[in-house]
């Protein structure tokens, strides 16, 4: 069974500080990994994704994530947080194609608060 763990329910950082959100996954085959962001009352927006190749992937809004197969992790980072980054962040794992591989399993989310 596939699963995603986001160990931090809530993180508070100061504006301008660096950020790292943790994500650990369990998946029986080659994982496809995603980070989504959700602003209050909104749907989910894709920040970045990893399928293969370079294990450091760049996304929108200055975010990046690093895939570490040995640690089953896909942590999200940003060097300098802006107040507008305050939102909830979801990590997800899935596979490609048909059958049960269509399924995308989400973590329970990390709520980010940014202090001025």
């Amino acid at each position, binding site marked *: 069974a596939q699963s995603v763990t986001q160990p931090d329910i809530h993180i508070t950082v100061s504006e301008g500080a660096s950020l790292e959100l943790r994500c650990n996954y369990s998946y029986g085959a080659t994982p*496809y990994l*995603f980070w*989504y962001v959700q602003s209050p*009352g*909104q*749907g*989910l*927006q*894709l920040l970045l*994704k990893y*399928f293969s190749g370079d294990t450091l992937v760049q996304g929108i809004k200055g975010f990046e994530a690093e895939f570490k197969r040995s640690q089953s992790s896909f942590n999200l980072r940003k060097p300098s947080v802006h107040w507008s980054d305050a939102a909830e962040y*979801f990590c997800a794992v*899935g596979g*490609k*194609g*048909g059958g049960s591989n*269509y*399924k*995308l399993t*989400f*973590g*329970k*989310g990390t709520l980010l608060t940014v202090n001025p």
Partner: protein
Amino acid sequence: DVKVTQSSRYLVKRTGEKVFLECVQDMDHENMFWYRQDPGLGLRLIYFSYDVKMKEKGDIPEGYSVSREKKERFSLILESASTNQTSMYLCASRSLKGSTGETYEQYFGPGTRLTVT
């Protein structure tokens, strides 16, 4: 840009009513999904449709049904709404043929916050 729209942002219904939540995508995507989102539980998959008239149960299908008569539209039906179905409902779609190769990410609508009283 991919656009996924949901018929209502907010909906209030009474217990026992039949409720229809509509989702439309404009990018000719094969796959469509319905999730519910609850605090502390994250997103849970209710139903999935891999093509027109094709559907598959997700993790929590009880109390729900779906309909996909046209490729662009995926409806979630609550046959007899109950208070424990008060939640945020999110629709998503996915293409199996990305323009730059394999992509497989899901695109989400803005959500419908349903309250059942």
